[in-house]
């Protein structure tokens, strides 16, 4: 596969997943708002804080209301990570490598883009309950995954898209979990109160993990939720699971099925995955959840850089090698 094509497929996977997760972020808050006691003020800033774009937001807006935040997260093309930006970029990546996609996949990605534009046209962020819109976007992306799942051959291209998808998801699950850190409880004494539990439940629901969590742990307990979302071996949105999948993809791309590592990317993902595999939730809480997640996000970025230099920057390597001679 052409290096350039592999890179576009990888980013297609990442941007689609990013858009889907933003739809989920927004859903967390709506879920939450509905369950809050009437005297509590809605909190929208934590959403932006968790995406890591708080500084950008402050340069663009002076008001922190629901409308501004929704617009910023979903429709603002000045926000490079907004749903619209991600969807535009995933379409652009898909357009460049259209000959490598099935006709259905391309058409659904194209449709997704027009759905998003239509939403911007209809000023969805001003609607009292825009959840149906984000639900549609999420479903459209899930449809694209479904089509791929049932029609794409499990060869290189498939693994590059999966790789992008799972690395993005690992990052986004860590950020969804981090939303909880940024949501302020009225006071320190509210830790462990029904309000606190409401937050945790909203979080689980946003990753479609509530029922699975219930079956595994029964009652809501913060450290169990953390364990579930970071370390669970079977839940497909837990960070550990995503890293295990990413590792699997990398090994199938290189053909190294005997363990160990063949390149820096494989080494990095292997290290990160084993660290989680042998971690206990008490280690994480002891370290500080927010700090732990922050650290993890940095490591995920490094891993993405290594994938880039291993597979996508072949020309640079080639040219620097010939120059050395």
């Amino acid at each position, binding site marked *: 596969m052409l*290096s350039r094509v592999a890179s576009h497929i990888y980013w297609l996977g990442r941007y689609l997943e990013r858009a889907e997760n933003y739809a989920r972020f927004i859903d967390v808050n709506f879920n939450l708002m509905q369950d809050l006691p009437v005297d509590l003020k809605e909190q929208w800033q934590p959403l932006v804080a968790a995406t890591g774009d708080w500084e950008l937001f402050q340069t663009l807006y002076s008001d922190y209301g629901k409308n501004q935040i929704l617009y910023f997260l979903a429709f603002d093309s000045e926000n490079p990570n907004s749903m619209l930006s991600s969807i535009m970029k995933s379409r652009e990546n898909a357009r460049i490598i259209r*000959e*490598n996609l099935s006709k259905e996949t391309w058409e659904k990605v194209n449709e997704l883009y027009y759905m998003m534009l239509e939403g911007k046209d209809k000023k969805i962020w001003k609607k009292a309950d825009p959840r149906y819109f984000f639900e549609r976007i999420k479903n459209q992306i899930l449809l694209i995954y479904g089509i791929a799942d049932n029609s794409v051959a499990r060869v290189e291209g498939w693994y590059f898209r999966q790789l992008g998808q799972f690395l993005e998801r690992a990052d986004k699950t860590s950020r969804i979990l981090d939303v909880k850190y940024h949501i302020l409880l009225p006071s320190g004494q509210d830790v462990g109160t029904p309000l606190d539990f409401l937050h945790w439940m909203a979080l689980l629901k946003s990753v479609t993990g509530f029922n699975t969590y219930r079956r595994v742990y029964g009652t809501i307990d913060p450290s169990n939720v953390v364990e579930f979302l970071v370390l669970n071996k079977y839940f497909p949105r837990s960070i550990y699971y995503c890293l295990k999948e990413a590792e699997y993809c990398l090994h199938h*791309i290189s053909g190294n099925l005997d363990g160990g590592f063949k390149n820096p990317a494989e080494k990095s993902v292997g290290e990160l995955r084993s660290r989680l595999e042998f971690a206990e939730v008490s280690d994480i809480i002891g370290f500080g959840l927010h700090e732990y997640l922050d650290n993890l996000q940095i490591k995920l970025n490094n891993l993405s850089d290594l994938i880039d230099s291993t597979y996508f920057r*072949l020309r640079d390597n080639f040219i620097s090698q010939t120059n050395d001679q």
Partner: protein
Amino acid sequence: MKIEGYNASEHYDEMFTNIGEIRPHYEEFFQSLKKIPIRKMNHLQFSANQTQRAMGMTFNVYHDNQGLEKILHLDIIPRIIPNDEWLKLEAGLKQRTYALNLFLQDIYNDRKILKDGIVPEDLILGSKDYLKPCIGLTPPKGIWCHITGTDLIKNKDGEYYILEDNLRCPSGVSYMLESREIIKRAYPNIFNQKGIRPVSDYPAKLLKMLQHLSNKSKPVVGVLTPGIYNSAYYEHSYLALQMGVELVNGVDLIVEDKKVYMQTTRGLEQIDVLYRRIDDAFLDPLTFRSDSMLGIPGIFEAYKAGNVALANAPGTGVADDKAVYAYVPKIIKYYLGEDPILNNVPTYLCREEKDKQYVLDHIEELVVKETNAAGGYGMLIGPKATKEEHSKFRDLIKSNPTNYIAQPTLSLSTVPSLTEEGVMGRHVDLRPYILYGNEIEVIPGALTRVALKKGSLVVNSSQGGGSKDTWVLYN
């Protein structure tokens, strides 16, 4: 037997005769068309537009700030060509392609036709499209023009005339293929009954032709595109997808030891045949334009060494120049000893004193074209132009006569099209596609371009034209 308001008498209409009778090859379709209320037609048109958008069937417009992607309007009323007409076209196009290919081989090698004074030497050797690096070169299998998209029109006399031989990787074939799919969905029943020759195997034929250019048993083929901002990017990716080959950019390729390699995730892989959609001048910055960012340094040397085949071969542009066009009947006679089967439009070459004077005197009746411009740019339609434009072109011709030719205004035939005023006749041209591999094959279909504005003769997509599906009947 009339469509209200449909006026066909001024020009040759392909559905009605000048006394308003239905031509036999339209009879059946006309009966079906009559049963479809105009509201349903408009709805079919609407769905076709939606489908095109969903498919991302777009082209990019140069010099246009209104967003990059546009849809080429597809008129949902097809154009029908009867088999006997087609057979003549087919024979004529094969003859022409064969002769032009011999001409190219000759002018880059022995130059017999120039020495024999059939075609003026300075016209060829002085042309900016005559590529000196190609002198003495014979491309793989001796084929220069692998893919041709000849433009024709049907004149008032009901005869086809060649307008242009497009030998430089003509575009539009993806519209021929995709339009057919859309139109099939619009009239599913008619397709079963009518006996329409299929075009869907074009990508397979194209691939076979490209593979033929290499001596390897399993050559690696690629489509070389200038990239996503090229107006025909959709077509490049569509053809790569349909053939199941790589779509490559210049940056994906590297030349080592006169061999061309693709950079893949598993290292370098040699590529044997490139269907290149990059202009000659941009192919190789070492041989041609040194400022080309799209090209691949060293690819021309690899081509000369026979390690990569390029379709079309570099250097074909010299033969589809509008001045050379005037000599094509002589070229056919010279190499094949045959009379041309298809008509050329009478052409006045301003490079010749007598012709120039005639053009200057009759400019308001003529169409004046720059010998080397494409896409309807640099053109004057005498009868429709203003006095100022006439004198502007007179000055242009006087200052650089070799750059201009002129032809009588032709009357383009009309075919029924769906317009805001209902079904009306609109002017069309015809671009069939010809592949030259093991043998020469004319694809039984075409891109029909239609001037959707009432009375307009300009069919170019860059100037507001649309397209039509073109049905060639079995009999």
